[in-house]
């Protein structure tokens, strides 16, 4: 080990040696290369590839936000609003951002109509997003935003209102919270009603508040309005008449549909039980069902006029041909068909007037199943109407090949064949329109009338109108269908309900009629399901509803009376004197 000798830096022998030339140059070159790289990078970012950084910068403050579009209105034929969307606002918070003084919290709580503790609990939530209150009126929402509190935000939503409430519930249906049609016209015309949201670009500050509008990218496109064929007044008349009948007869369900026989427009459509579309908290399926369009039933005797018309059209009978009704009984195979009241012999008019099953079957037996099937098919039975309504049913009409003789017989008086109420009402247009069937429409028709299809000759239709007027007359099955000032015609139906393939002692009472007879304008079809307060015949249960609806509707439409304006005179009652009648009405 050699002893250490201290060496100072200045006397370091290495310094004496002198450096080689290339070493400082190398360092210098290295440094210059580094600088060049930096300059090149800067030039690249600033000059050649600036879009990327600019976009990144923009995305820190500029946002594309959606602009909601309003859902279209639904109005009745006169433009009265039936469904409308109005904006509401939901207030939400980002709890970490929402640092409020106690005074601010109290102010906010009172505006939101919340307890201060509740608000504080929500604001101290760990989540990044909490709703404070949904669907606030715009007025209150404005005052909340005027407070300018940090971390408190709002979003616009729409709420749909139905001013007519349960009167138009089934026709209109309703929308979901997202403003999408769920039922009824709201669903059927969703494509027209829904708007197309737009978007715009805005500049936002750190807190997310909009400080500048930059540009509109796509303007919102509001949904278009739908004008229904419905007449609000007639709808209301039908609704109150049905509700009254439901209570009086303690019925399970009921429906009324009113058609304009000239244009095929559906003027009113009501169902019971109904619901309030503005408050759908506890709905049942029974309330929701639009029975007029979706429920099929065996119509019963309302089918008979078509058989009589077919027989007239083929020239097999005249209105005065006497049919031997075998004292109200006949046997086909092992089955017996009977009438409610026995008549020895009835004319064709009498068969319709008294609603004789036997007489109708005798007329039907003169046709092959194919001929009858062809008529039912032409009348539109067995096929949905394709109005665009969700869940439309078509009823059941089996192919003629599979008909047994007893089935052909029962079908002639409306059993073994099923239809919806609206199909039945539409089929009656052949009588009101001189033998032509017209397509129906949910919306108001402004253009030329729709093409029609001829089923019976005009002569047959005119004869049938007379027969149906007699049927609704004093000696017919439905004298209670009579109304003051107008001649009415129509046919009752009382059908046993089918349950599990067997006929029960529960009934469906119906009435399909039209008025005024001299120049038919309206077709009104009424169906009451399971009347259970003693009466069940169509003439007693459904015909009075028809009378109420037809009378009110004709007056609402301003149709000129075609019968003398005498007070109604029911057998067994004294004629109502004018003064007394005033009190009664």
């Amino acid at each position, binding site marked *: 080990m050699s002893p250490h000798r201290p060496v100072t830096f200045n006397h370091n022998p290495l310094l004496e040696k002198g450096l080689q030339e290339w070493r400082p140059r190398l360092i210098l070159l290295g440094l210059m290369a580094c600088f060049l790289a930096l300059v090149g990078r800067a030039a690249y970012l600033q000059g050649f590839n600036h879009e990327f950084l600019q976009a990144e910068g923009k995305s820190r403050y500029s946002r594309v936000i959606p602009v909601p579009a*309003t859902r279209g*209105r639904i109005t009745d034929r006169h433009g*009265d*609003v039936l469904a*409308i*969307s*109005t*904006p509401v606002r939901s207030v939400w918070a980002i709890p970490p951002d929402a640092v409020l003084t106690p005074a601010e919290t109290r102010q906010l709580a009172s505006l939101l109509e919340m307890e201060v503790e509740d608000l504080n609990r929500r604001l101290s939530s760990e989540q990044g997003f909490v709703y404070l209150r949904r669907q606030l009126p*715009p007025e209150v929402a404005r005052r909340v935003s005027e407070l300018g509190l940090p971390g408190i935000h709002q979003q616009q939503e729409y709420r749909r*209102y139905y*001013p*007519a409430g349960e*009167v138009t519930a089934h026709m209109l249906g309703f929308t979901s919270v997202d403003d999408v049609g769920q039922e009824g016209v709201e669903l059927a015309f969703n494509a027209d009603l829904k708007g197309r949201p737009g978007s715009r670009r805005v500049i936002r500050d750190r807190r997310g508040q909009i400080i*500048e*509008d930059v*540009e*509109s990218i796509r303007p919102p496109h509001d949904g278009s309005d739908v004008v229904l064929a419905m007449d*609000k*007044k007639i709808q*209301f008349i039908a609704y*109150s008449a049905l509700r009254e009948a439901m209570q009086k007869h303690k019925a399970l369900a009921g429906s009324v549909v009113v058609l304009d026989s000239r244009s095929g427009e559906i003027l009113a459509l009501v169902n019971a039980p109904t619901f309030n579309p503005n408050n759908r908290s506890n709905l049942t399926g029974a309330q929701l069902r639009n029975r007029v369009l979706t429920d099929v039933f065996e119509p019963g005797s309302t089918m008979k006029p078509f058989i009589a018309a077919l027989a007239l059209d083929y020239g097999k009978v005249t209105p005065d041909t006497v049919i031997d009704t075998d004292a109200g009984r006949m046997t086909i195979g092992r089955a017996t068909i009977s009438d409610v009241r026995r008549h020895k012999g009835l004319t064709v008019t009498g068969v319709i007037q008294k609603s004789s099953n036997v007489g109708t079957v005798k007329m039907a037996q003169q046709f092959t199943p194919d001929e009858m099937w062809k008529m039912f098919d032409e009348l539109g039975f067995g096929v949905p109407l394709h109005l665009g309504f969700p869940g439309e049913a078509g009823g059941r009409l089996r192919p003629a090949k599979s008909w047994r003789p007893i089935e052909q017989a029962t079908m002639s008086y409306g059993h073994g064949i099923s239809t919806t109420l609206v199909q039945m009402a539409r089929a009656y247009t052949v009588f009101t329109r001189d033998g032509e069937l017209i397509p129906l429409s949910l919306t108001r028709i402004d253009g030329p009338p729709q093409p029609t299809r001829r089923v019976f000759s005009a002569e047959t239709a005119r004869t049938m109108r007379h027969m149906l007027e007699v049927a609704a007359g004093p000696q017919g099955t439905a004298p209670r269908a009579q109304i*003051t*000032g107008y001649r009415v015609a129509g046919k009752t139906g009382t059908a046993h309900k089918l349950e599990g393939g067997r006929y029960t002692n529960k009934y469906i009472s119906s009435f399909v009629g039209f008025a005024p007879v001299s120049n038919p304008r309206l077709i009104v079809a009424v169906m009451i399901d399971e009347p259970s307060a003693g009466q069940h015949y169509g003439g007693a249960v459904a015909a009075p509803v028809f009378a109420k609806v037809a009378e009110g509707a004709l007056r609402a439409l301003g149709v*000129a*009376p075609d019968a003398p*304006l*005498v*007070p109604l005179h029911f057998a067994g009652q004294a004629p109502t004197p*004018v003064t007394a*009648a*005033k009190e009664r*009405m």
Partner: protein
Amino acid sequence: MIRADAFLVSLVVASALGVVAAQHQARKLFSELEREQARAHELEVEWGQLQLEQSTWAALSRVEAAARENLGLGEPVPGRIIVVERVR
């Protein structure tokens, strides 16, 4: 030569100022448009609410109740109906 340069430079400056002014104008007009559109929307909303209110007040059940109870009206009885027809 210098004169031409000065002229061109002043043109450039003028057009630059023009661009600035036009952009400012465009921004102002756009925000005005936005404001007006918002106002139109607000009015639309108000109209909707008024329609809603109107149809609530004019609900047929309410009108009927008012007519029957407050005004003592009823359906006309046959003897009191006069039919007016237009003769063509």
